[in-house]
């Protein structure tokens, strides 16, 4: 296969901090080339350099063997490199044709040649199998349609190289299938496709080559048929996968939380379950079966939710209350909630790390109390959770997803929460930080806490939980203990064609 584009010895530093060091990659004609690695490994930066968005600090690009430099994305596009960015680069208030030709409009004298642009756009759209009027407003298209428009935009310049940055993140299953057909068609026409993803299925089914980056350095490029998922993951993480999940609890303590008569809304069947000291319990199941609502009912923020809760404090006294009285009541009893969308619902992104960490402490004080820094508490948390930052005065938004999640966790550890209710504990968290979060949860449990979490990732459910409650139609349909769970088992129970199902109440 002929090499279309080669990047050699690329380095990129932001304010002196290296983001890429001496990385090289080669794209061949008729190839789908996976670019993978943990969040922050530098995959997007490398692709942005090829796309002309970012200028490299060092290194060279060779297009068809000739050295090139791109001053702008438009430059790269005109040279035949088309990029489908993760957040699309279309302009919502323009028409489809206008946005496809934006920056390189066809003109007749001083006037825009709309007819020619519409015709060319229609032709390119037909090639990607999209029968939409090029005069339609971009904002009225679905995400999948917008993505196709971006691809069609590349076809209008007869691009040879296509870059896709996590293209399936926002698509549903059918749309993903359509995209894959399209990608294969492009490949068969001899295009070179760079495909940023960390979804194993896509990498192995779609891509012929995988380049792995880690911490801004090249791990290597491999033909995918020589790899398997475990091997690839360990290349990405740089260590064995077995270490991803900490050991499970070897002994459990007394019951710390008793939940009875839990209803997420008036129609739902009531359910009941217990948590024991030191135990991590997962709510698994198909999407939207009520896992999220159950957790939110316990947290006191599900509008229609009701539950009778008994929670034991460290001295062993049980206190009883009913959920539904707002998050303050649940929190007061030691049940802390970490939402899935931590940026919108959990953290104060623009406030410094220390303020986010001590927020829980301050909430318990009188409104007019002075808000002290609690430096020792903050320093302790940063150390215990290994929150990686140069200063706790930085805004939380400057942290990576994993470190943001640690701040969320630290806030509730600081107030001595007894039970953590967590939605998707490692969403948007890279593999390395995942382990640290799991370890932190285990440490919390070892001190007598208990965790209830929801997760869409079955490997995480199996790897982390001591017990799994499978949820279907807002109720528990099966319960499995650690060691005896498989992904298939959970899925069987979740779709409901499973015979047994030890529902303990």
């Amino acid at each position, binding site marked *: 296969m002929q090499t279309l584009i080669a990047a050699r010895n690329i380095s990129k530093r932001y304010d002196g901090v290296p983001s890429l060091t001496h990385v090289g990659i080669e794209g061949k004609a008729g190839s789908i080339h996976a670019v993978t690695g943990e969040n922050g490994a530098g995959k997007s930066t490398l692709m942005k350099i090829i796309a002309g968005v970012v200028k490299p600090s060092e290194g060279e690009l060779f297009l068809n063997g000739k050295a090139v430099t791109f001053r702008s994305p438009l430059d790269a596009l005109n040279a035949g490199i088309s990029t489908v960015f993760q957040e699309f*680069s279309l302009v*919502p*208030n323009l028409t489809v044709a206008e946005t496809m030709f934006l*920056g*390189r*409009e066809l003109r007749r004298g001083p006037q825009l040649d709309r007819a020619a642009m519409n015709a060319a756009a229609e032709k390119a759209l037909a090639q990607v199998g999209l029968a939409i009027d090029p005069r339609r407003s971009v904002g009225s298209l679905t995400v999948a349609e917008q993505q196709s428009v971006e691809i069609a935009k590349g076809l209008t310049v007869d691009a040879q190289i296509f870059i896709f940055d996590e293209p399936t993140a926002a698509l549903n299953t059918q749309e993903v299938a359509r995209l894959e057909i399209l990608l294969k068609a492009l490949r068969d026409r001899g295009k070179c496709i760079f495909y940023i993803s960390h979804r194993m299925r896509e990498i192995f089914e779609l891509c012929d080559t995988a380049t792995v980056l880690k911490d801004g350095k090249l791990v290597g490029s491999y033909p995918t048929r020589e790899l398997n998922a475990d091997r690839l993951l360990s290349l990405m993480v740089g260590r064995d996968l077995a270490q991803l999940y900490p050991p499970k609890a070897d002994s459990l303590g007394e019951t710390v939380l008793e939940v009875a008569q839990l209803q997420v809304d008036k129609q739902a069947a009531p359910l009941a379950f217990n948590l024991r000291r030191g135990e991590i319990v997962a709510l698994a199941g198909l999407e939207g079966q009520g896992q999220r609502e159950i957790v939110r009912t316990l947290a006191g923020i599900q509008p229609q939710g009701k539950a009778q809760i008994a929670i034991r404090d460290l001295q062993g006294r049980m206190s009883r209350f009913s959920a539904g009285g707002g998050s303050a009541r649940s929190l007061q009893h030691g049940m802390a909630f970490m939402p899935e969308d931590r940026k919108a619902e959990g953290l104060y992104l623009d406030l410094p790390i220390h303020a986010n960490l001590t927020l829980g402490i301050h909430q318990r004080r009188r409104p007019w109390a002075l808000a002290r820094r609690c430096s020792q508490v903050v320093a302790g948390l940063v150390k215990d959770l290994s929150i990686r930052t140069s200063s706790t005065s930085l805004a939380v938004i400057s942290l990576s997803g994993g470190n943001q999640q640690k701040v969320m966790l630290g806030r509730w550890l600081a107030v001595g929460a007894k039970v953590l209710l967590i939605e998707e504990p490692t969403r948007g968290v890279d593999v390395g930080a995942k382990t640290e979060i799991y370890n932190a949860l285990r440490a919390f449990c070892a001190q007598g806490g208990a965790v209830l979490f929801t997760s869409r990732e079955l490997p995480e459910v199996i790897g982390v939980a001591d017990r799994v409650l499978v949820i279907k139609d807002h109720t528990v349909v099966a319960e499995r203990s650690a060691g005896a769970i498989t992904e298939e088992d959970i899925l069987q129970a979740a779709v409901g064609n499973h015979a047994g199902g030890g529902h303990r109440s």
Partner: protein
Amino acid sequence: MKTRYAGRIGGQYLSAILLVIALAVLAACFAQFRTVENLGNLLVQATPLLVVALGQTLVILTGGLDLSVGVMISLATGLIANTESPVLGVAMVLMAAVSLGLINGVGVARFRVHPIIMTLSSATVLQGIVLIILPTPGGAVAPGLVTAVNGSMGPMPLAVLWIVAAVLGGWFLLHRTRLGLHLYAVGGAPDNAALAGVNVSWTIVRGYVLCALFAAVAGIFLAGRISSGDPWVGTSYGLDSIAAVALGGTQLTGGIGGVWGTLCGTLLLGLVGNGMNLVQINPFLLSVVNGALLLVAVCLRRRQQLGL
């Protein structure tokens, strides 16, 4: 959940509907309204606001705002009325406008000063300069200009030509040229426009320069209309032009709107004034009505955009 845009035409049609309703009501109720003389007056009165509002539309489409257009108008009248040669006067006005637009545009686009602060500052500075040039109303305007503004061809006032030229010029610029497309793109999604190769800063700068030029033309027209210079004559046009643009359905966040909406918005404001004049209501109430009209019209539109 799908974001829906009504396209970049936005709610312009609403102001057209309001305009037609206002026209119909006035024409049905008042015989004086239907006279050629009254309609001609209406157009002449609306012309300066229309011209400056068209310029304002360009800036607002990029997501900006220009508060300095009013002072630019005052400056234009002052320069025209204090220069012997009308050609020299017009040249000086246009040069002043380009400079003002460059300063505003560079401040907003390059130095990231908020448009309100940037144009308010330049307006305040410029007002001082205007008062130094022309402390009190006065000066003389070349008779040719006075005729070009106040004259008429048969029953049609010459101001109509100014209107047609300004609207067609604005329309061509926005809908037929690359710059127009870029103004929309910058207002719609500046980062994505930049990725596509649009020079965002330069586009914004040109928007402010054109806006100042439109204001300059409005100022030249007003100088002819009042046959003198006046350091304060433009003051009200700063906010009025923004009101006219908003009434015309152009979104202050940028990216949606256009020339026809501004035309309708301006004429609507003119009609309301004219109508209230005809029924001889206390003229101070006009301000009350205009304010309420603006609020109601913009709110109606907002509800439609949200699909409620």
